[in-house]
């Protein structure tokens, strides 16, 4: 498969899954907060091509895309959002707490910045295993304002851990833009660089550019050169939390919205896919994914809820 197809297919799958979540959300059967990555699929698609099964990954409240990109089971994720016992977290975690240990997706956290040191701990374990595994830590721009982020980057640099901080910068912490959160001259890569962490910044909506960045940086990290940070500028198309659009609230300027709406990551890559049978391939892929999604949702809806007793049994090992 060409790299374009691989990237596009990965983005398309995430997009279609999340659009299905959004369109069914009003049925009120998915009764937990959902933070969709629609518009932010570029970094996850790139990650899915670069990450190895032995690698660890960890994420945030906006975790669907990362979970799927690491190879997390789709049916188990949908069941989890429905709160069913067949969910990846047996229904006790919900959308914000996804994990699939069998593929190294080691969790996601609702608390901003919370999973960052956990990811560094996974990096510490990976280094001790001496098998060239990487710990990938997904975080948003808001998390870089948390104290624990600095503690984590510092330790990763100090111990030269195989960690890649993947910072999806969508410009907003809920409704607050960067101008109210940090001085203008202060950028996320510059701060990380000043802590001794190799850092680069790329356009996250250009999936090909994201892929190149992740590939080159992860090769260095895998080689034992210490941690790195990749900032990927991107755009959240929908509201911070929930299935809807919230552009009517006016917290993002018309200018900003117009600019980013022309830069949908799927559209950008699609425009480069001009091969003779690319259109046909996309159509077939869409149909395959749609079938997979249908199965995932119908199985999730049919499954039962966990019992309180089953929840109690999860507490201690």
């Amino acid at each position, binding site marked *: 498969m060409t790299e374009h197809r691989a990237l596009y297919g990965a983005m398309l799958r995430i997009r279609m899954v999340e659009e299905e979540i959004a369109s069914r959300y009003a049925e009120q059967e998915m009764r937990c907060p959902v933070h969709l990555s629609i518009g932010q699929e570029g970094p996850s698609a790139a990650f899915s091509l670069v990450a190895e099964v032995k690698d660890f990954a960890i994420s945030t409240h906006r975790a669907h895309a990362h979970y799927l990109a690491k190879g997390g089971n789709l049916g188990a994720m949908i069941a989890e959002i429905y709160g069913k016992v067949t969910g990846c977290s047996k*229904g*006790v975690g919900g959308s914000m707490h996804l994990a699939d240990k069998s593929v190294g997706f080691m969790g996601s956290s609702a608390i901003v910045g919370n999973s960052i040191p956990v990811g560094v701990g996974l990096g510490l374990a990976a280094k001790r295993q001496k098998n060239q595994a990487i710990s990938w830590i997904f975080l948003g721009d808001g998390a870089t304002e948390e104290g624990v982020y600095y503690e984590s980057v510092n*330790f990763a640099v100090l111990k030269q851990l195989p960690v890649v901080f993947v910072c999806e910068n969508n410009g907003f912490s809920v409704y607050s833009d960067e101008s109210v959160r940090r001085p203008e001259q202060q950028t996320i890569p510059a701060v990380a660089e000043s802590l001794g962490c190799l850092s680069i910044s790329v356009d996250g909506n250009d999936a090909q550019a994201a892929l190149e960045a992740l590939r080159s940086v992860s090769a260095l990290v895998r080689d034992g050169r210490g941690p790195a940070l990749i900032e990927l500028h991107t755009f959240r198309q929908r509201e911070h939390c929930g299935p809807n659009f919230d552009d009517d609230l006016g917290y993002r300027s018309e200018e900003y919205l117009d600019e980013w709406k022309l830069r949908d990551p799927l559209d950008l890559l699609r425009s480069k896919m001009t091969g003779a049978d690319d259109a046909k391939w996309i159509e077939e892929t869409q149909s395959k994914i749609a079938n997979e999604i249908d199965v995932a949702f119908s199985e999730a809806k049919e499954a039962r809820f966990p019992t309180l007793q089953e929840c109690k049994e999860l507490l201690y*090992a």
Partner: protein
Amino acid sequence: MPENTREITFADAVQEATAEAMRDDESIIVYGLGVNDPGRVFGTTAGLVEEFGAERVFETPTAENGMTGIAVGAAIAGVKTIVTHQRFDFFLLAMDQLVNSAAKWRFMFGGQFQVPVVFRLITGRGWGQGPTHSQSYHSWLTQVPGLKVVMPSNARDAKALLKASIKDPNPVVFIENRWLHQTTSLVAKGSEPGELGKSRVVVEGNLITIVAMGYGVVEALRACEELAKLNIHCEVIDLRTLAPLDIETIAESVGKTRRLLVVDLAPETGSIAHTIKTGVEDRLRGSEVHYTGVLCGLDLPEPTSHGVTMNFHVDAGAIFSRVSSICDGKSSIPAPLRTFPSDIPPQGGFGPF
């Protein structure tokens, strides 16, 4: 006495438990501020880096929250971590990672992970430790499902329970009172791990059950000795583990003595002493019980001045007075329990500790 048993300090027992566990299991690492410094966390990490190397025993940045999360991450990937803190108070910076990560990573991902981490927290006492060097929020932590909370009172239990905590596949908070470090008891080399969630009847008696934990047990036993001279025979129970809580052993004892006093050196409001009292009352409802009560610290931060701390702590004298008032109502505190100065351990010495 078995050949390999000898009298050692609580601090040495902690060191020995750690070293023995690390010999048995190469996945164990130890880190924290001071683990390799000249003091070696009051001697409790002495010799570890020399025996196990700097990859397994290392100093850390001053980053309590981050290092707690890092322990969780390492643990879910199979690296068992023992994290040390020279004061409980500093660990308060790590509440997010303790509560939202360590205690939840198993539950909230449907049981996919184990989180074998031991957090060793030391509570300061005396010599002006004051508002931010003397706190012990053990009762708070029992409010966090998913954690185990252990609080030994002597060297033998320290070793047995630390080994059990290290072996446990769950996050365990292991609380050491600074005044216990130099106390001694008979401890065996190469001993087996103890069992978490079991309290122990230390002294048998028939008139009243006194439940205490950590350093409070030392004070309770001192009071008990003097009370025995007045023919007031107390049954003293060392709680040892606060979560899971062994309420059955206590209820059984109170079923016999008909009286219960729960001693906690920490502030009274929200103390686990009340949980124990209520738990026992519930279990013994319908049977004859003459007294249930608690004796806890003031709802006040510890003042630094040694001019006031003499009246601040719950000590053997206070326990003696309360028990005496319950059981015979007439005895005044005997001379051996009128401790002065109150800001140094009974065995003597001076600070800073």
